[in-house]
């Protein structure tokens, strides 16, 4: 290294060679002045946007709103899901035997049986005899019990105590919340007592095996509950779903609708109820079953209620026809590849041209050079990824709705996490690639490493190449775990569906997945820093 080169290099970082700011500025200038890199980053962002719009535009949904109407397509086919109190799309259809209840009060009931019918395959239903061709059997989340709801309108705030087909006694409220009570199935020999009390906006659920010893299951705080609510008995039963797991073809096959019938006695409504028991089908008939299949019968001191449908959040997938914003952001992988290439070249291009010796001479503290490069690579990628994601999410959502694809609504905060999260994942991936480039010093090997460690596990985990169990492990322990940031809706244990990575459900929580990637990046940077200090440039 000649003295002249060193002086020149020092002058280049004239902002002060000892200062980190100057180093950062010189790395930024190095990036900015290579046209191919700037173009690469911008092209990556553009491809991300175009890809997302293509995906949103890709499926044009056709439908027939009624048997005699002409076929329609696009926005006319959007399913009309009511929105729950939390703003999420919900299914709210059940048979409700109810009375208005004003002020504080409680409902108590004894359940002695829960039986059901279901259609194993989604065949047609004879209008005159809907139960023909159905098999006896309850669904795991067939539910019946007592409910207090703000109104009979679908999507209203509620709290309910229920027995279920396969999950014992539960307290559920506001569609997404679920707490377990007494386990086991209900029968005449082993009945269940359920109680729900209202005190102001607070509803408390209790269960009991004998009607004298009560256990509190949970408390629901339903803000803004009107003084007069609808209280009573309900029964409902979701569509038959078979979740196939353990093989490569993991997924769910949906059958037809189902019915559940529950027998109640010792019905007691305390407080100031009005009127008499009145039966209503809430949320319309579900799954093609005519409304006449549901109903209630009073016999002796008891009541039996039959219903079909579900009171639960809508889950994305083939059964509901709903999708999530995550699939519009899969184009981020194109942006990721561009970011990895540029981040690797930030360091390998210097090795190739020998510029690294000038850089190291100008700034002998090599760790700082690496840090400056990491900041530039991360910041540039973050900004490009943020711009792309922020543009594509609202545009693709609007386009998908126009094409008749229902995208599950999420809160603005969740949208922001998905958008910022995508940008952050790309940024950290770029830093990881930069560290790989520093370690390997060869661009082809480093770019391959940077791409393969993230993209390949994502492919193996999400496209059904590996069985669901192995796929979940891959998405727990590899850098691809970070794409959990793109999951916008949680998996609900109270809805039977196939929550596999292939369906966009990641095994780790968003920030936990991101932390896995960050862990790899920190490890790689530390190793790169160590090697950079030890080896000759």
């Amino acid at each position, binding site marked *: 290294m000649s003295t002249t080169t060193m002086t020149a290099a020092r002058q280049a970082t004239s902002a002060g060679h000892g200062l980190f700011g100057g180093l950062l500025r010189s790395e930024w200038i190095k990036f900015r002045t290579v046209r191919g890199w700037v173009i690469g980053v911008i092209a990556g962002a553009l491809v991300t946007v175009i890809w997302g719009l293509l995906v949103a535009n890709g499926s044009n949904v056709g439908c027939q709103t009624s048997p005699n109407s002409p076929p329609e397509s696009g926005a006319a086919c959007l399913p009309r899901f009511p929105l729950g109190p939390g703003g999420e799309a919900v299914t709210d259809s059940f048979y409700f035997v109810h009375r208005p209840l004003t002020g504080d009060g409680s409902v108590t009931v004894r359940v002695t049986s829960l039986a059901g019918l279901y259609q194993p395959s989604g065949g047609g239903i004879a209008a005159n005899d809907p139960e023909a061709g159905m098999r006896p059997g309850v669904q795991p989340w067939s539910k019946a019990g007592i409910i207090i709801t703000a109104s009979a309108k679908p999507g209203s705030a509620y709290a309910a105590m229920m027995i279920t087909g396969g999950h014992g006694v539960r307290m559920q409220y506001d569609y997404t919340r679920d707490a377990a009570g007494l386990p086991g199935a209900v029968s005449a020999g082993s009945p269940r007592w359920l109680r729900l009390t209202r005190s102001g906006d607070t509803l408390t659920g209790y269960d009991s095996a004998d009607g004298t010893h009560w256990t509190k299951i949970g408390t629901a705080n339903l803000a803004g509950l009107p003084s007069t609510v609808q209280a009573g008995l309900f029964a409902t039963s979701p569509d038959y779903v078979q979740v196939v797991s353990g*093989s490569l073809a993991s997924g769910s096959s949906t059958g037809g609708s189902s019915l559940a019938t529950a027998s109640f006695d010792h019905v007691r409504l305390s407080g100031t109820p009005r009127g008499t028991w009145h039966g209503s089908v809430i949320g319309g008939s579900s799954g093609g079953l005519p409304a006449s299949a549901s109903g209630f019968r009073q016999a002796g001191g008891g009541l039996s209620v039959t219903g079909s449908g579900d009171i639960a959040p809508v889950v994305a997938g083939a059964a509901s026809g709903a999708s999530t914003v995550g699939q519009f952001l899969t184009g981020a*992988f194109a942006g990721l590849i561009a970011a990895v*290439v540029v981040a690797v070249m930030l360091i390998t291009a210097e090795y190739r041209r020998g510029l690294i010796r000038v850089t190291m001479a100008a700034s002998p503290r090599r760790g700082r050079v690496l840090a400056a490069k990491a900041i530039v690579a991360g910041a540039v990628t973050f900004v490009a990824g943020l711009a792309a994601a922020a543009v594509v999410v609202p545009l693709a959502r609007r386009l998908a709705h126009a094409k008749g694809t229902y995208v599950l609504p999420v809160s603005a905060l969740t949208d922001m996490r998905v958008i910022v999260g995508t940008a952050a994942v790309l940024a950290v991936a770029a830093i990881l690639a930069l560290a790989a480039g520093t370690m390997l010093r060869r661009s082809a090997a480093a770019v391959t490493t940077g*791409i393969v460690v993230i993209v*390949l596990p994502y*492919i193996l985990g999400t496209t059904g*190449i590996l*069985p669901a169990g192995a796929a979940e492990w891959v998405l727990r322990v590899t850098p691809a775990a970070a794409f959990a940031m793109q999951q916008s809706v949680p998996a609900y244990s109270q809805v039977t569906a196939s929550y596999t990575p292939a369906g966009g459900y990641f095994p780790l929580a968003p920030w936990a997945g991101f932390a896995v990637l960050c862990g790899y990046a920190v490890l790689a940077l530390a190793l790169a820093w160590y090697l950079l200090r030890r080896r000759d440039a």
Partner: protein
Amino acid sequence: MRRAADAPSSTPPPVTQTAPARKTSGERNGLRAGSSGLHEALQAEWTKLRTLPGTFWLLAAVVVTTVAVGTAAAAAVTCPHGGCSVDPARTSLTGIYLGQAVAAILGVLAIGSEYSTGMIRATFTAMPRRTTVLAAKAAVIGGLALPAGVVAVAGSLLAGRVLLTGHGFTPAHGYPALTLGDGAVLRAAVGSVLYLALIALLSLGVTTIIRDPAPAIGTVLGLLYLDPIIAAALPGGHWHNVIERYAPMTAGLAIQATTGLSSLRISPWAGLGVLAAWAAGALLLGALLLRVRDA
């Protein structure tokens, strides 16, 4: 490196050298002065690749990564009660997903490292027929990838045979042990070997077009790995089928299917043909650009 390194210093400048240079080298090697010089080019490329330490490690890495991922996949798949919709051969060969990335590095470096070091100018000085140089590189790369692929695929199938039999893939469940005597398994095995070689050739072609190893390998891996991701994001639509049929990786890997052939969007050999067309297209465009551009 002898030929390649000697050539520029012992021959006159490129402009005037064409005919005499070829004659000289032919005489020196005691070879018939070939009209195309392909033989010398082959020898030069072979020497260059053979003497680079990276080549051996990359070939070893193709084998190790393919077998390791294939073994892990076979270890993860179980079928305790039979009736699983699992393709045992395809599962054993899952490692190709990773092995192909290493094969791609091999293809990229075959010409990319010459561009990054400036060696390419020496090569073209010694061998002014650039298409011949590219053909020689393709032959040598293909010739190296094939035996590596054979070892990788054989190792994967052997591991799959041992592991899957212990995981319920038994004749009683309708899964005979993996053997090359089975026509479909043989097709998957031979096809996977050819797949690896074609990926190396595709990478060589793309790098000849792009000339810089980093964006070249990025392009190749993007071409391969983005296919299944975008196909999964477009379920059931027209574009989904187009990608499954015409994208290099999704079409090319159809060759690995031994069960459920009727659900494939493209038949196994036609799928490999699509990948071959991609590789040939990249090499042809690369050859064309080599002729018209400065080195």
